[in-house]
């Protein structure tokens, strides 16, 4: 997998964002940092791609944004999962697991 999120498998960025939001509401930069940390620096998302994905997810009703104060008292938009978002995350995870297993089987077949 490449560094650029454009090279992510189509649709995986959405799933990964949903996953980072599953624990607690965070703001945009927090999502980017967490994705980078959790992937050990493999995925680096820039602001443009991230905002596009956030807009898409918001419009699909999977996440919602709220303006809140940060720890150093700045204003930031915090995103959190909605109920449909939580459900979507579950189904996407299952589907992803199925696909990964299938791909692995194909690659390991001799």
């Amino acid at each position: 997998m490449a560094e650029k999120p454009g090279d992510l498998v189509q649709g995986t960025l959405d799933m990964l964002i949903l996953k980072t939001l599953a624990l607690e509401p965070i703001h945009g930069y927090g999502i980017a940092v967490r994705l980078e940390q959790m992937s050990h620096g493999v995925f680096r998302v820039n602001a443009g791609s991230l905002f596009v994905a956030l807009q898409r997810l918001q419009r699909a009703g999977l996440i919602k944004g709220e303006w809140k104060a940060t720890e150093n008292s700045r204003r930031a938009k915090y995103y959190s999962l909605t109920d449909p978002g939580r459900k979507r995350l579950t189904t996407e995870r299952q589907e992803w697991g199925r696909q990964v297993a299938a791909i692995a089987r194909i690659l390991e077949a001799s």
Partner: protein
Amino acid sequence: MPLLRNITSGLRSLFQKKQVDRELKEEFSGYLEIATQEKIKQGMNRRDALRSVRLEQGNFEVTREVVRLASWESLVESSWQDLRYAARQLRANLLFTAAAIFSLALGIGANTAIFQLLDAVLLRTLPVRNPQEIAKVAIDHRGSATGHFSTRYPDLTYAMWEQIRKQQQGFSEDAPVAAFNIVSPGYFETLQTRILSGRDFDDHDTPAAPKVAIMNEEFAKQYAKNANPVGMKFRVRRLQSTELYEIIGLVRNTKYTDLRENFGPIVYTVKAQFENPGTGAQILVRSHTGLVGLTAAIKNTVAGVNPNMDITFSSLRQTVEDSLLRDRLMARLSGFFAVLAVVLAVIGLYGVMSYMVAQRRSEIAIRMALGAEPASIIRLVMRESGRLLLVGMAIGVALALGGGRAAAAMLFGLKPGDPLTLGTALLSLSVVAALASLLPARRASHCDPMTALRNE
């Protein structure tokens, strides 16, 4: 629900663009600020941190465009911009625009006219069943004694006929007015006019028997209030007799004097009950054997009875053709001019379109020098020609509909605004317009930018 949210959110960013922009900007600059803080924490000085973040994340304008392009409302927005650009361009090239649109309009109008005329003149069949089997025999000269008989429409009527008119004296306002037709038994069978109810005249309808008549549907509709008129009785005031006629049959509507006319009420009476049916008569003959032998045979027989009698033959088909002569002439003439107009329109359209593209050669050359692909140049030109085409088409369709209506009044069987016709016209002119802009655009996009610029 998600769809609704998508739409409302899209509408919001369309109509509250400033606020949506401000929010995005705040979110973005917040994002950059936190990122910068992080870098400072890692030991960078503020200037380096800012620079590094900007390099990584890009600037706000780019991000805003990326976000906007990902949404459906950007399509709406860019279409609106396209339209405004098109309007500006049309204003700038007013003369050429006018010429192009006029060519298009003329072309569409003329093209439509042609197709409508082709449809009306060439593709229509005669409105009579087996017209080649029917012949009309008109006795036009009965020797010296009676003289020549002629009616207002000598070709289309087959018998002496009279119009019963309202006469001021003693006529009530709603006195029925109908064409009055004296025929003999077998008339309806010869013309294959269906008897819907009742019976045909027969040999029992003699002068001594009660007077009988047959009505057509239109008569029943107008004067019997759609009821079956068979059995009803009426008087003919024009004949100045008090004798009652009984209606014994109802027949289908037929055209009486002219193909263009609407069906009118007709009363048929039987010849045997008229002592003096007038001085002229026409005899209709239907034969399955063809007219050539038949006419000779009839002539012989008539000559055997009275050698002074002159008779002429004409087939019903010929009669119908003759009655459409004016229509056909009109149609041919206007068809000819329409073809001419289309040719002119096509030439004009091609000329104007290709001139407009040729005028932009230096612009195209600059775009090419800056790295535009030929395909994208062609797309650009085609898109702009397409806009012009749409405006021209709208005007052309309006003209064609207006012109078609005027023509319909003059010609028999013309349908104004037939969608198929209009569609064919639009399609063929679109193809011409597309070619007219594609060819010069291709030429311009394939030439060397430097040559094009130097030629300026």
